[in-house]
C-alpha cells in the first residue's frame, strides 16, 4: 500500500498514522510503543520519506504495516540482517528495526550480536514480553527459569537471556530499557536512541495480555515500581525509592543498594551515572540488576559514540575512488595482464 499525501509542512504524529485497522489484541503493550514511536519521528528533523521500518516475524513485527513509512515485514529473526544491508547501502535513510524476544534472541540471535559488533546506525526496539505470542504461548529465550508454558509444562530448564547483557557482551554502544506503559519515558529514550550514531538497542518491557499477562508487574506495578525500578539518567546520582532515599554505590566488585542517611551514607556517596563512559563495566552491572537484590534499571544505560560500519565503508569508497586508476568497468576489464594478439 502507498500513501501519496505529500506535505512539506512540519511533521506531526498524523503523518505516520495509517488508516487501516491495527490487529493487535485489545490492551496489548504494542499500541503504546507504536504511539510513542509516532510521536518521536516528527522530532528528528528527518523527511518522512526517509524513514524505513524493518521487522521480523512475531506480533511485534506487524509494526511496519501500522506506521506510514517505507517498510519491510521480513523473515523470522532476519530483520537485523535485512536492515544491515539496507543501511549499509543507503546511509541516508533513517532505519528502525522492530523485533521481539523470540525474533531477536532465539532465531535471530546470530544476526543480533553481529549487528551490534558492526555498529550499524540502526534503532532496534525489542518488544520483550518473555513469551511467544503469535504462536500462542510457548516459552522464549527471555522467559524466566521454571516458567510453565505450553512447551514447558514442567517448567523451563533454560536460563533466560537478558538483552542488555547480550548487547554489552557484543560490544554494544547504546542500550536502554523502557516500559510499555510509560509513554513519556519511551519517547525520551526513543529520541536519544534515534540521535545516537551507531546501533541503538532498546528493550521494552512489553505486556502480552493473552499469553503472559502481567509478567512485568512484579517490577512495574504501580504500587511497587518506585522501590523496584531505578530510572537512570546520565550525570545524575543513581537514587531511587518512593522517598528517594535509596541509592547505588560501587562496593568491591558489585553495585550495592544503600540507604541514604544510614551508616554515614550521604547523597554525595552515591554513584553518578556516566552513560558515556567507554568502559562498559558499570553499564554491564546496571543492565544485569534484577529484583529483589537490586532495582531494575530503566532509561539509557549506555550511550557511547564510535565509528559506524556504514561510515567506514563510505570512507573506504571515497579513498579508493580518489586513489585508483581504474575509474570505470572498461578500465577494470583492461587492467592487469592483457594479451594483445595480432
Amino acid at each position: 500500500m502507498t500513501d501519496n499525501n505529500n506535505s512539506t509542512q512540519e511533521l506531526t504524529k498524523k503523518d505516520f498514522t495509517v488508516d487501516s485497522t491495527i490487529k493487535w489484541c485489545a490492551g496489548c503493550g504494542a499500541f503504546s510503543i507504536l504511539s510513542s514511536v509516532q510521536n518521536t519521528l516528527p522530532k528528528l528533523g528527518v523527511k518522512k520519506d526517509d524513514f524505513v521500518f524493518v521487522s521480523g516475524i512475531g506480533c511485534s513485527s506487524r509494526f511496519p504495516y501500522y506506521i506510514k513509512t517505507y517498510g519491510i515485514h521480513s523473515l523470522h529473526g532476519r530483520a537485523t540482517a535485512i536492515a544491515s544491508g539496507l543501511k549499509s547501502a543507503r546511509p541516508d535513510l533513517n532505519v528502525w528495526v522492530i523485533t521481539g524476544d523470540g525474533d531477536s534472541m532465539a532465531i535471530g540471535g546470530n544476526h543480533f550480536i553481529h549487528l551490534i559488533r558492526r555498529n550499524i546506525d540502526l534503532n532496534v526496539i525489542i518488544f520483550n514480553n518473555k513469551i511467544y505470542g503469535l504462536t500462542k504461548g510457548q516459552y522464549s529465550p527471555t522467559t524466566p527459569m521454571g516458567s510453565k508454558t505450553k512447551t514447558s509444562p514442567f517448567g523451563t530448564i533454560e536460563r533466560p537471556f537478558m538483552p542488555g547483557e547480550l548487547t554489552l557482551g557484543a560490544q554494544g554502544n547504546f542500550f536502554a530499557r523502557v516500559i510499555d506503559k510509560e509513554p513519556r519515558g519511551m519517547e525520551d529514550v526513543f529520541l536519544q536512541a534515534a540521535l545516537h550514531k551507531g546501533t541503538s538497542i532498546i528493550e521494552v518491557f512489553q505486556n502480552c495480555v493473552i499469553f503472559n499477562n502481567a509478567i512485568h508487574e512484579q517490577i512495574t506495578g504501580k504500587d511497587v515500581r518506585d522501590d523496584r525500578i531505578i530510572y537512570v539518567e546520565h550525570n545524575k546520582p543513581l537514587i531511587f525509592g518512593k522517598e528517594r532515599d535509596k541509592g547505588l554505590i560501587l562496593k568491591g566488585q558489585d553495585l550495592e543498594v544503600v540507604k541514604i542517611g544510614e551508616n554515614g551514607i550521604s547523597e554525595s556517596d552515591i554513584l553518578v551515572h556516566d552513560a558515556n563512559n567507554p568502559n562498559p563495566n558499570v553499564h554491564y552491572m546496571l543492565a544485569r540488576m534484577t529484583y529483589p537484590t537490586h532495582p531494575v534499571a530503566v532509561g539509557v544505560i549506555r550511550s557511547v559514540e564510535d565509528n559506524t560500519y556504514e561510515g567506514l565503508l563510505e570512507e573506504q569508497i571515497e579513498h579508493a575512488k580518489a586513489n585508483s586508476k581504474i575509474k570505470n568497468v572498461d578500465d577494470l576489464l583492461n587492467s592487469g595482464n592483457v594479451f594483445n594478439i595480432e
Partner: protein
Amino acid sequence: MSNKNSIIELEQVVVKFAGDSGDGMQLTGMQFSDASASLGNDLSTFPDYPSEIRAPQGTIAGVSGFQVHIGHKEVQTPGDLADVLVALNPAALKANMKWVKPSATIIIDIDNFDNKHYKKAGFIEDPLHDSSLKGFNLVKAPITSLSRATVRELNIGLDNKTADKTRNQFVMGLLFWLFDRDMTMGEHFLQEKFAKKPELVKANIAVLRAGFNYAETVEAMTNQFHVNPQKGRKGKFKKISGNIAASWGLVAAAEKAGLKLFLGSYPITPASEILQELSGLRNLEVKTFQAEDEIAGICTAIGASFGGYLAATSTSGPGLALKTEAAGLAVITELPLVIVNVQRGGPSTGLPTKTEQSDLLQAIHGRSGESPCIVIAASSPGNCFEYAFEAAKLSVEHMTPVILLSDGYLANGTELWPIPQMKDLPEIKTPRVKDNDPNYQPYKRDPEKLSRFWALPGQEGLRHRIGGLEKSDVYGEVSHDPFNHQLMCQYRAEKVNRVADYIPKQDIYGSKDGGELLVIGWGGTYGALYSAVKEMREEGYDISLAQFNYIMPLPKNTDEVLGKFKKRIICELNLGQFADYLRSIYPQYKYSQFNKVQGLPFFISELKKRFKTLLEEE
C-alpha cells in the same frame, strides 16, 4: 654441447604439473599458461587442489595439481589426459599416473624418489624399477639438488628452504626448452611476481636458466615440441577464471543499469573468490558485506535491493540451501536479486573443491511454496561474465530473483577471453517510478512482463510496505483472501514464464535442421560436449549439440529443437536432474542419459565412446 634434437609441431598439448601443495604448482601452471597466451596459443586451464590447506607432505592427500591445455586451434577444455606430467614427488606421480597418455613424457624430481617418499605415497614397489612406467618417456631430473646448488652458487645468503621454493622454476626451465620457447618471457613473469624482493628474482631466474640448460645439455629429453600460435584470432585477451568473470559481469551490469552493486556473502568454496574480488572494487563503489552466515548474506542483499542497489549474493550448494527461505522472500516481495551458486560435489559438505552439477533441481524448486525463480547457467569460464550480466539484467527488468549456476570447474578454470567493451553490452532498463507518481501502487504490474515497479525509500510520495505475508493484487495490503492468493501465485509464475519472450532461442551446434543424435547438455559441460561432438562430426558422424544456458524458463523453441532428432542423450554431472526436468515438460520424447558424479568433468574420450555406442544401437 649443442642440441640437435628435432622439433615436432603439435596441434595441441596437455601439461599437468603436480607436487606437494606448498610446491608452487599453481604458480608454475599459471606462468606456463601466461607464456603460452603471450605466444598466441589458445588455452584452457584447470587447477586440481586438495581441500586441506597443507596436508602432510609427500602424501597423496597433499598433492596439488594444475593442468594446462594449449593449442594451435581452438581449445575448449583443459584436456582429458596429459601429454606431459611433471611430478615433484612419488605421491604426485601416483595420484596422476592414471591421467596421462600412454606415451606421455613424465618428468620427475629424482631427488625425492627414495624409500622414505615411496612409503609416504603408498607405493609398495619402487615404481622406477618395476614395470609401472613402461612406455612412458621418463625424465629423471635432479631438480632439488640442482636448484639448491644453483642458489648456493649465487652466494646471496638464501638457505635450502628458500632454494627449494625455486624448484618450480627449474621445472619451468625444462618446459621452456621442451616447448622451444624464449626464456625472456619466463624471466619477465618472475620480475613482476617478485618485484619487491630482488634476491628472489635473482635466485628464481638463475634456477629457471639452470633448468633450461639442464634440458639442453644432458639430452634427457629426445624431442622438442612446438605449438604454433592460433591463426585468425586477434584483439585483446585476458586469461580469466569463471569466478572473476562472474564478479566482473555483475559490476558491468551495475554500471550499465546506472546502479551501484552490493554483494552480501559468506565465504564458501568454491565461490569465495567472488566475494574476494568484489571486496577489492571499492573504487567502483562496490559495497561488499561479509555476513555472519549464508542467511545474512542473502538478507543484507535483499535489504540493499529494497534500497535500490543491484544486489547479489554468492554461494555454493550447502549455502544455497541456507538461503532458500530468504530467496522466497525475494520472490514474494518481487525484488531484484542475483544469487550466484557455484556448484560443488554434494550433498552436505560433499566434495568442496570438486565440480558437479547437482544443484539444478535445488535451484529450480528449492524454496517453500509456489516460488518460481529465473535459473540460468554459464557454460565457460569467460561467459560467466556474460551470464552474470544477463542474470542481473533479467532480475532488474523482471523484478524477480535470478539464480545463476556456475560450478567449480568454471569457477577455477581459466580460458583466453576476448575483452568486451561496455558500449557493446545491451542496455538494462530499471523499472523505476517517478517521485509522487499518483498512480503508483506497490503491486501494480507491467502489462507485458507482469513485473511490479521499483519505488525506493527516500523517494517522495511513494511510501509503502512490502513483506513476506501475501499481498493483495495492485494495492499490496496484507491479504488472506483465497482467490487473491491464487491470483498472486499465478502472476509470479507467469511473470517468470514470460521471460521466455526476452531470451534467445536455443541454438544447435551441428545439424541445425535435425538429424540422427542430439547431445543435450547444460552449463559447465559445454567444453567437453562441444569438443566431443565436433571431433565426431569431423569423423563423419551425424551428431549435434544443444547446450542450454537458460533453464527456467526454457527457450521457446526447446520443443522444436528436441523434436528434430531421432535420438537424444542428456549428459550431466549428476544422476539425471536436467533429464528429469526435461521429461516432466516434454514427456513425448525418449531420452538416453550419460551421468557422471565423480567430482570430475567429462572426458571427451568417454563421451565419444558413449555416443558411438548409442549411434550403433538400433
